[in-house]
């Protein structure tokens, strides 16, 4: 069964968001998403400094099965990317909420995160 940690917020497009203590947002894909994709073979993320708009595609996650777009759950500026995924994209399968994180954003509007789904709502969406 997929797990959806209660402290995270979720987008309908299957990304999760964690608000860090410094106000930045860490973003990855959900356990449900990694499980549906199967073996993840490639993750393409933007460069640090890129400006993302909520709902826009910011990258691609590829599995043996298919390539899927990644969507920004909130608007903001990329302050860090997980470069370890370049050589070990399977980390997203193994640890989607920790080592498999994809990027960190400085959100344009910190309040926007609250508009995302909470864990029970996301769980119902994919249940």
């Amino acid at each position, binding site marked *: 069964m997929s797990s959806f940690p209660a402290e995270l917020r979720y987008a309908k497009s299957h990304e999760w968001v964690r608000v860090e203590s410094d106000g930045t947002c860490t973003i990855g894909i959900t356990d449900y998403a990694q499980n549906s994709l*199967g*073996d993840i*073979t*490639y993750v393409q993320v933007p460069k640090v400094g890129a400006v993302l708009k909520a709902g826009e595609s910011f990258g691609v996650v*590829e599995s*043996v099965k298919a*390539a899927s777009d990644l969507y920004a759950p909130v608007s903001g500026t990329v302050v860090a990317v997980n470069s370890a995924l370049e050589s070990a994209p399977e980390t997203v399968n193994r640890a989607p909420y920790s080592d498999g994180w994809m990027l960190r954003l400085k959100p344009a509007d910190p309040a926007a995160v609250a508009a995302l789904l909470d864990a029970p709502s996301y769980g119902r969406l994919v249940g």
Partner: protein
Amino acid sequence: MSELKRTPLRDFHVAHGGRLVDFAGWEMPVQYRSILEEHKAVRRAAGLFDVSHMGEVDVQGPDAARYLNRLVTNDVAKLFPGRVLYSPMCYPGGGVVDDLLVYQRAADDYFLCINAGNIAKDVAWFHEQAAGFDVRITDRSADYALLAIQGPQAADIVQSLTGAKLGLIKYYHFGEATIAGVHCLASRTGYTGEDGFELYHAASDAPALAAALLEAGRPRGLELAGLGARDSLRLEAGYPLYGHELTADISPLTAGLGWTVKLDKGADFVGRTALLAEKQQGGAQKIVFFKTGDRRIVRADTPVLDGEGRPVGRVVSGTLSPLLNEAIGSALVAAGAAAHPLAVDIRGAKVALQPVKPPFVDLKRQS
């Protein structure tokens, strides 16, 4: 959508976490744990595959050998009881009806293994081509289950379940054996590039045989493997898959299977005239295998471009090689372009295709 067909191991797959998908009208496990891990387990130790969706056909009668030699491009006359032959079977124009294994049980008794998606088409073709030959053609697909056990540990695992001397069955040979109490046609063949067996047996025996092979194999590193790993293993080994490297429009010569086309076997066969002309004049297109040095998978149907960016063909198979950690694949390209630099566009990035003569990895198959 019409009802999916199920193999006798459908419940076994569900019980072992198999992820079932529609494959050629069959509900089949694409993976259990991970396609990449199952692939590596087969190269490292062993994998167990349910391939019961494959079709089986008996061809029997006084004209069986002559009939089959007219149907397939390889030379059936070279067979003897216990010997297996791989061959394409062509249309008059040289395109491929199917590729199959031909087993000779006796001089007038042959057994064929055909692709699941082609069973109805092949059986109709067998009957259509039988006019004037004294042969009986029987579709046995529903009677048989087929388990493939592949990998360096496969033969030892099967040997642990039988008193038959499996060492006597060499590569591309077969014999009868009772394995874990189940009567099998044990064929030393496979679709992974590894040593191993394909075990044909009565459909009702499949759950017992699968359970016995899994139990005997697990201590030796055997894992259940799905069709996802089967596809990446066959591509890494450079084997064609019908519908990809071989189709009604792609001849065996175009696909690089010239070794299976015996133009001089001393018997006319369906497609010979067209294949002879293709050999003499050169084909218009060619299947090439490639790797990219990049992890992005080059998917089937991606256009292939020449050095100037002009389209010269398309990708027919593509995956990530779990051993090489880079994209590998095959493409159908204009013959004149095959020896020149080729590339594909992946989401706006130009990725060069590096030509490879398969297999992509060293295969340790014993024979």
